[in-house]
């Protein structure tokens, strides 16, 4: 099987190209502000996000459900939520230094997700149920805000290192105060945690009522990892609320939390378990067998 991108997917490719340009400009604007203008970076990110959303909307309209019918779609959906959240936070808090950290990561993941198309997996169940929306949307939003809080903790630790090492370069200048980062880290977690909880509860009810994961649904790796994620973030909440802990410790635990998020998201695929997804290449119009190609070549 070889892969040919469908015309719709080229919309996403355009978004990725804009994200690559944005990443260069975002990082460049810190170290060479004269050469890389922040305004151009803003245009790149907004244009990229527009193409990204356009892609997801077209996909949704075509399939009549959320853009999560394939792993590729759900990855891009998740990435769009991260960019959207970052852009909102950037303009809400006048936070110039968030996107230079977010965009290289998002761009990396986007490129990786394009690579996914080659060997994509499709959703196995009827996608038009209420439970799907109740389960997926909160969880995805929760994951996206955890990702952003992970980025805040990276920023926190970077700034912390620079303060300790007395390395006061352009990066030091552009990063906000530790207190600001600590607050934002906290806000994004408290935004994501209730959403994750709702998503998990909805998922549990769905699994119990429709029996789509079988009788032993609670042994599904994704369910287990999801619960572990929930526990980690509950622990962070406890650290901050109960023990009112601040500073580097919270930042480190947030990074661990995000590692679990990533594991929950893609881990089961790597391990061969596919909570919800299976190879169903028939449904993927972009996959064409070599035989078909040969035939068209002969014809032409």
């Amino acid at each position: 099987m070889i892969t040919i991108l469908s015309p719709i997917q080229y919309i996403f490719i355009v978004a990725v190209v804009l994200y690559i340009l944005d990443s260069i400009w975002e990082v460049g604007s810190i170290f060479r502000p004269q050469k890389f203008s922040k305004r151009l970076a803003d245009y790149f990110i907004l244009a990229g996000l527009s193409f990204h959303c356009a892609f997801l909307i077209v996909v949704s309209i075509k399939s009549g459900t959320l853009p999560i019918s394939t792993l590729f779609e759900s990855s891009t959906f998740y990435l769009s939520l991260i960019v959207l959240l970052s852009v909102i936070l950037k303009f809400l808090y006048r936070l110039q230094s968030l996107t230079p950290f977010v965009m290289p990561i998002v761009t990396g993941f986007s490129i990786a997700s394009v690579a996914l198309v080659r060997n994509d997996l499709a959703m196995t169940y009827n996608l038009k149920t209420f439970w799907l929306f109740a389960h997926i949307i909160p969880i995805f939003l929760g994951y996206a805000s955890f990702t952003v809080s992970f980025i805040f903790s990276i920023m926190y630790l970077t700034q912390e290192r620079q303060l300790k090492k007395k390395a006061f370069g352009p990066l030091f200048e552009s990063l906000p105060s530790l207190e600001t980062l600590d607050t934002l880290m906290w806000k994004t977690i408290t935004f994501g945690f209730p959403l994750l909880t709702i998503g998990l509860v909805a998922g549990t009810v769905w699994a119990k009522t429709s029996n789509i994961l079988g009788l032993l649904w609670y042994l599904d790796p994704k369910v287990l990892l999801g619960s572990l994620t929930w526990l980690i973030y509950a622990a962070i909440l406890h650290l901050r609320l109960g023990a009112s802990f601040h500073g580097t410790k919270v930042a480190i635990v947030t990074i661990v939390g995000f590692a679990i998020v990533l594991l929950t998201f893609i881990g089961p695929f790597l391990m061969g378990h596919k909570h919800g997804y299976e190879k169903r290449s028939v449904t993927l119009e972009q996959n064409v067998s070599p035989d078909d190609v040969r035939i068209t070549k002969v014809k032409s």
Partner: protein
Amino acid sequence: MNLHTVGLNHDSAPVEIREKLAFSASAVPIALSSFTQSFPSSETVILSTCNRVEIYATSPDNSLNKESLLDFFSAFHDLPKEKFSGHMYHYQDINAVRHLFFVASSLDSLVRGETQILSQVKEAYMTAASAETTGSILNQLFQRSLNVAKDVHTRTNIGKGKVSVSSVAVDLAIKIFKDFSDKTIFIIGAGEMCELVLKHLVERGANTAIVANRNYDKAKSLAEEYNGKAINYENLEDYLPQADIIISSTAAPHYVIHTEHIKNAIKIRRGNPMLLIDIAVPRDINPEIAKIDNVYLYNIDDLQTVANSNIDDREKELGKCQKIIEKEVEKFMAWFEELKIGPAISQLRNHFHEIGEQELERLRPKLGEIAHEEWEHIVYSMQRTLNKILHKAAKVGKEKAKNGGGYQYVETIKHLFGIHHKDDSKK
């Protein structure tokens, strides 16, 4: 029509001379009016700060030069010229323009890139403008100098980075804390530097201060000034956990704050960051404390290093600033030359038309009876001829003015048509 600057600054003269020649804020208007009395039809601005005293002046005649300006200083301050003339610099025309642009952009300042001078130049200009001692030339010159200074500051990094120890300390505090209104600042010892940092932090919203000093009265007086609380030096330890920012500068020969103190404090604070600034020599705070998580410790050398590197960075921007200024100096000079070309060309035009009219007057009786219409044709033809001859000269003059060299061109024309003397007597 020439532009002159005569003055002195921190480089050219010691403070003993500068203070003698300085004009106080109330003396400036008096000096301005006495200047215009001595040099009627001149324009002038007086810039007097603690680091420089300068007179900018221009006059359509040739009454202004270095000596006449020095005489003014001497007369106004009642000081013999020999006493200060060696410390004075004099710039003329393009050099005077360049000098003002340098001064306004803070490239000629003791601390390069500081912004205070810009408001001082503005102030000096406003004072002169309201005393009505400025005209079209100095108005143009000073307004442009303010714009150039803003341009230099926004397009280069000449004003970036703090260059004093106390402001570097505040910059560090800003990178740790978001706002200072809910933070406690703990001052140990009472030095000028401590107070300066405290003052900066209070300006940024800090409103809780604790002061400890071996001399309780000293602590009390500083605390009262900033609405803070003075504590007994012996109880210093008890207050450490409350402190978000600690600034220490005691004369103690040993450490005042020990590792155990801060370890304990940070435990109580549950990881809430602490900023410690040790300005004392010998040091007050055990340097081992820097290793504790969430504690940020800086000593006087750290702060000085940052300040020095910022000063170096500013020096590196000089070339860029000079380029911007040079462009603007050229633009101003083009305008200035055009200003000179304008009157010269109208003089030339008047001169030609006068000759034409004289010739017509001579011709009129010789023609006898002719129709009014025919005479009109003759007059018209004469005017056209003159205008055609003048057209090229005026055009080249304006071009020359734009590209420099306008002044020489004007002089040549004057010589060529013998209007030199007339011009001077007119002025």
